[in-house]
């Protein structure tokens, strides 16, 4: 078997709390299509941390998306992809810092309570100002490769309709998420590779603004399965307007930014001789 075709649809909505506070969206999403030699498509989602230290969180999230597009196809495999993602993200952040040093003006209340904590954090690790999660999915003819750093959902739906989470992060007791901005970001990486013969029909990447809108633990699994069923039953693509409506509902209820990418995968027999 090999993967023949990939279709990527995305949507996102600014969280109700962010809108009320007149903050922009801290999520970023982007994707590229390839010619299959060897990459068919790459998609990345990032969720900038709502933390006083992360004053350039949206920039950091955008850098995840840009870095994902720049990750080379060679060497293959999610471990190499993760290392390249982190290295490229850091390069972009460091270049941005060089041209835009952090100053007290970056903090909303530079002399207020908590400012000292922010300065202390920056003194130790300036990249924390760009703190964000990173969810990355790359599809080649041979495999579906997943890299994640931090929270959010990565769900695969098989042809039989069963949904499962991929590469779940370790649940932290302090409620914080891991970040690509950590000095030891490589330790926070969770990755997986699914060979073409076992490729799902759908990979769903979502920021936690979706899951936080549901009271039940398995709701996102159910949602992913329902999307796959909807597409199968109607024979029609699931458009960004459909995902967008879902994102709006989640963003209204959870209050957080809600961003999703649906990666539809078609597989077929490998050509003779391969």
């Amino acid at each position, binding site marked *: 078997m090999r993967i023949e075709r990939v279709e990527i649809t995305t949507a996102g909505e600014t969280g109700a709390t962010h809108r009320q506070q007149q903050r922009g969206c801290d999520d970023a999403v982007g994707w590229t299509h390839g010619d299959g030699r060897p990459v068919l498509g790459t998609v990345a989602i990032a969720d900038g941390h709502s*933390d006083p230290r992360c004053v350039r969180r949206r920039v950091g999230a955008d850098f995840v998306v840009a870095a994902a597009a720049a990750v080379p196809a060679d060497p293959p495999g999610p471990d190499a992809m993760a290392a390249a993602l982190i290295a490229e993200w850091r390069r972009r952040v460091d270049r941005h810092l060089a041209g835009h040093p952090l100053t007290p003006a970056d903090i909303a209340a530079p002399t207020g309570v908590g400012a000292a904590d922010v300065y202390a954090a920056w003194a130790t690790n300036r990249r924390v100002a760009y703190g964000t999660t990173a969810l990355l999915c790359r599809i080649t003819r041979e495999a579906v490769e997943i890299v994640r750093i931090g929270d959010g959902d990565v769900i695969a739906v098989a042809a039989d309709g069963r949904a499962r989470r991929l590469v779940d992060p370790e649940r932290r007791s302090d409620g914080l998420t891991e970040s690509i901005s950590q000095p030891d970001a490589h330790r926070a990486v969770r990755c997986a590779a699914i060979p073409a013969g076992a490729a799902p029909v759908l990979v769903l990447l979502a920021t936690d603004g979706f899951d936080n809108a549901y*009271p039940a633990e398995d709701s996102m699994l159910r*949602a992913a399965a329902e999307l796959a069923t909807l597409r199968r039953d109607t024979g029609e693509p699931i458009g960004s307007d459909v995902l967008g409506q879902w994102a709006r509902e989640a963003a209204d209820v959870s209050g957080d930014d809600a961003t999703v990418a649906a990666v539809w995968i078609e597989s077929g027999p490998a050509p003779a001789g391969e």
Partner: protein
Amino acid sequence: MTDEVQPLRTLGGPMARRQLHFVWILDISGSMRADGKIQALNVAISEALPSLRAAAQSNMSADVMVRAVTFSTGAQWHCADPVPVGEFRWQPVDADGFTDMGAALSLVAEGLRALPERGLSPVLVLVSDGQPTDDFADGLRQLLDTTWGSRAIRLAIAIGRDADQSVLQTFIGHESGQRPVLANDPDAIVAAIRWASTAVAPTFRESGSSLGVPGDDDLFYAPGDSRPS
């Protein structure tokens, strides 16, 4: 012609705002009768309600639910069922008896066990002017043994100079960097209660970082106290 977007309200099942539980844990022991402390506490909680509601309103991701435990000789729910913050009304309390803080924490633990599996970390605010007269450590252990108790944002207000700040710090824990807020006069009690009420606002909660605690020298010295230079 554009096809209408199919409604997806049931995608994944029903969505629902999560609840954020805010619990006052209030010392109404006999010593609170002195120096107008219990009167100040009653006034403070009533006057802090608009701040609590405003902070709750700013948190659009959660429905804030309020209730209270009082403790003196034993502990009891002052309002046992969580009440939406917009509907919460404070019924003044009197002071009398011992300081069974451990019993209060045990009661709160029992209440937290009934909370749904998914939600936002509760906010627990312990207010006391003295030292526990029962097994505080056991009560705290019971609280921290619950899922929500260990994940709760725990704040403490020390009323007067006889309050056992080490006990209150033990309640708060040491990881967050928070300290008990000192309130040495009625105005300071009001200010401290109002400050604690804002813990439900989203800025504090999303970050996971320490709450901003007004410094002792800013708010909570009684008139006439010497202030550090």
